[in-house]
């Protein structure tokens, strides 16, 4: 979970930084998109690594959930959770929604099977047209809030799984994980929100 998670944690940052070019104007984003497409070796290597990581992450996640459910043997009749965070307890659920989001997102902007009304090959125009439909924009925003929940637990867990954490550093690393999760989520949310409110046209 940690190693594949680490790949995905790195990817969301790179993806976000690229997307934020939206705010620099159509030319910047379109040039960046063109540069990516002019380097098929780079883009396909990244896609393959991501695909393998996503499938491995899901596979290990399912295996963990099933094993852990069996080991628990039902658990006590009275629930008295002391410390486990909301994020940690909802990892499988937030994960499933994020998977659904990824599938929709690829259909929407990569395969373009979801109808988006725009002209030409401007990525900028495509994004603005895509988020002009409020239902889709809101779905993106909700998914990113769940990604925030997922990352909040995931990023801090990476340190623990790799053995790079102790009680002295726990608070600071958890805060770092929360800051990272919120930065990623709010960064992504800013784009559909800006389109919805008319800041990006």
């Amino acid at each position, binding site marked *: 979970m940690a190693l594949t998670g680490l790949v995905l944690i790195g990817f969301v940052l790179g993806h976000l930084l690229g997307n934020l070019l939206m705010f620099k104007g159509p030319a910047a984003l379109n040039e960046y998109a063109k540069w990516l497409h002019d380097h098929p070796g780079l883009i396909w290597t990244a896609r393959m690594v991501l695909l393998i990581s996503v499938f491995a992450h899901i596979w290990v996640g399912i295996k*963990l959930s099933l*094993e*852990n459910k*069996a*080991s*628990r*043997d*039902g*658990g*006590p*009749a*009275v*629930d*008295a*959770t*002391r*410390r*486990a*965070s909301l994020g*940690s*307890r909802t*990892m499988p659920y937030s994960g499933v929604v994020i998977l659904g989001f990824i599938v929709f997102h690829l259909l929407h902007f990569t395969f373009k099977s979801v109808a988006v009304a725009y002209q030409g090959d401007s990525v900028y125009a495509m994004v603005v047209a895509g988020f002009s439909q409020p239902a889709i924009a809101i779905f993106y925003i909700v998914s990113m809030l769940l990604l925030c929940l997922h990352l909040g*637990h995931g990023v*801090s*867990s990476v*340190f*623990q*799984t*790799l*053995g*790079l*954490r*102790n*009680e002295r550093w*726990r608070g600071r690393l958890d805060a770092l994980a929360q800051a990272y999760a919120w930065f990623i989520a709010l960064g992504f949310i800013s784009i559909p929100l800006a389109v919805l409110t008319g800041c990006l046209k």
Partner: protein
Amino acid sequence: MVQENGKATTLALKLRVWRQRRGQPGAFEEHALAAVPTSASFLEMMDMLNEQLIKQGKDTFAFDHDCREGICGMCSMTINGMPHGPLPGVTTCQLHMRNFRDGETITVEPWRARAFPVLKDLAVDRSAFDKVIQSGGFITVRTGSAPEANNIPVPKPVADEAMDAAECIGCGACVASCKNGSAMLFVGAKINHLNILPQGQAERDRRTLAMVKTMDEAGFGNCTNYGECQAHCPKSITLDVIAKLNRDYLRARVKEFFSSTGKPSKGGD
């Protein structure tokens, strides 16, 4: 309820206690218990309940207990959903009835985990922990004569850290509190206690790999960093031991993978 200086000195309680025979499904049984002194320990309260059941000609509740001083790790009840009850850092035997309210309903269950099958009522079989210890929780030395203590210098901070890990009494509250039924806190404590001392170095990698393998085979779950074990451990063992277990395991696996056989490979020169 008897009062002294305005404070209740005895309690009347409603108890929901788990009744189960080995291999059969169990259920809660309700009993009323009066005149429980607030100075009684939780186990003494259970003794009172059993005496009342004997007088009524009924079957008593089986529960594990031994030293009643908080150091042996035998007592093992989940009280109102919390292993060892509501007080942090104490065992069931050191939990006193003054921590409960008059008229309160208290739910008492056994440890719930697949690796700890119920023997009877509140007593569970914790021999899975013994198997983990047998697989590597020791150092191999010639016994019979004590060696000169100063032959092996141990830095004070290392000795302290090993002692913190060795505080684990192997009660199983970590498994019972974990939403995954994982034994990582126990195994982490046992591995750390030996792996950081000079005496434990010779078998460090073998110990780590063997104990983790035995833990997995026993049917314990996997750690997903909830942190419930640390919050319920009667000895306040921290998640540090799990981080260090992960680190030592990774190290041992890499070393095992690239270990030398001492022979040239087939087809090589």
